[in-house]
């Protein structure tokens, strides 16, 4: 790294920018339904809101907290602010950041890595917004094409395609780390089929087990 470059100053400015943009962003997003109600001349059901929020929060409040704890170290400062405001983290931002890290050959926790993940997440967010914007503009002609039953399996299997490709990349990095989490997930999901649809919750457990196994092998000096 160029020694005249002040990384701390850059990092401070990223946090400042992130706090400002995310504060304005979330306030706008929360205010928007209220503005909708004024524009549409209708009123919110506050009791419906309270009941609905309670139902959603029981599951998603703990998930959001755990996601924050897990994703921030992986995505770096800039990548985190952007990922949390633009969403689609596990199915897009995280794989995108990993892919960029693999290509740029940077190491987690380094300033270079923070630059690369911010760049990757920023570009990814912009492309998504652009694709959806174009899609919304062309919604009428595009809907029958995208909803065509012949093409449907392609989009229904986007995540298998993504994790199949990434799995081939990462499982082969270390079978010592990969074997137990994979077998455990298969075994648990066969024993309790309801878990098959609970990937969001399970990945926290399986990810934690993978890290614990890594720690064990690393301490023993068994990882090359």
């Amino acid at each position: 790294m160029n020694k005249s470059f002040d990384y701390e100053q850059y990092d401070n400015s990223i946090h400042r920018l992130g706090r400002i943009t995310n504060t304005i962003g979330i306030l706008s997003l929360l205010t928007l339904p209220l503005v909708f109600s004024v524009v549409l001349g209708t009123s919110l059901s506050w009791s419906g809101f309270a009941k609905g929020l309670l139902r959603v929060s029981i599951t998603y409040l703990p998930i959001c907290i755990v996601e924050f704890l897990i994703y921030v170290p992986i995505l770096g400062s800039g990548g985190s602010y952007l990922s949390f405001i633009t969403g689609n983290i596990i199915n897009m931002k995280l794989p995108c950041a990993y892919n960029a890290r693999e290509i740029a050959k940077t190491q987690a926790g380094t300033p270079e890595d923070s630059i690369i993940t911010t760049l990757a997440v920023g570009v990814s967010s912009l492309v998504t917004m652009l694709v959806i914007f174009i899609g919304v503009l062309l919604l009428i002609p595009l809907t029958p094409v995208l909803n065509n039953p012949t093409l449907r399996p392609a989009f229904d299997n986007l995540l298998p395609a993504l994790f199949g490709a990434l799995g081939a990349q990462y499982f082969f990095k270390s079978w010592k780390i990969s074997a137990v989490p994979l077998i455990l997930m298969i075994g648990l999901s066969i024993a309790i089929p309801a878990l098959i649809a609970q990937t969001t919750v399970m990945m926290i457990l399986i990810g934690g087990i993978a890290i614990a196994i890594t720690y064990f092998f690393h301490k023993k000096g068994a990882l090359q």
Partner: protein
Amino acid sequence: MDYFSQANSAPLYILVGVVLLFVAISCVLFTRKSYLAGLKMGMDRNVLRTTITASALFTVLPSISILLGVIALSGSLGVPSSWLRLSVVGNLSYEAIAAEAASQAMGVSLKDAASLTTGHLVTIVLVMTTGISWGIIATIFFGKSYSRKSTQLLNKSKKKEGKSFADWAMVAMFIGFCGTFIGSYVAEAVVFKHFLPLLTALVAGLVMKGCEYLVNEKQLAWMENFSLSLSMLIAMTAAVLLAL
């Protein structure tokens, strides 16, 4: 005016457009800042450009999938609200679950769009946004301190133990994610005899290994930038063919 005329009215498109424009500007600011910082830091311009190209290419297919979610959700919430919800915070599975939970809390269902009113719509959108906002709120209040603390711990582990546990931990975390999803596809095949997700994942994995072979053994370094997108594209095409 009926429900869908109101849910798809021009003022809603404009309001959503303004908020999304702000988020897009934020993305541009972060991207520009990190690109310039990378150059000042002495990083190779080609590496930064490759990152941009590879990230853009990788994102196209998942974005089309999200667009499908907009189409699906617009059948009950109208286009502007669906466009908003799937462009920012959250993901398709969350949005569908939260919208249904909110509508059920008011005694209606998304499946019966005829029963929805604009009052339901604004309440559902507020529940969807609030329910997933905790991560953003956490970044605002704790992002700086937690990010610095975790970076310190990562770097400390490197110094202390010689070899980097931090790097292995990152690999392990992703192995955990991949293991969860691949494991669920294997179980789905065993329990429900739904083989398509597992076969799609296998095709993607094989293409990825093929690309790695070409990059490492045949010195086709340029292919590394496209290998993930190419693997996904071929696997998704295979899913269409296998489902015929």
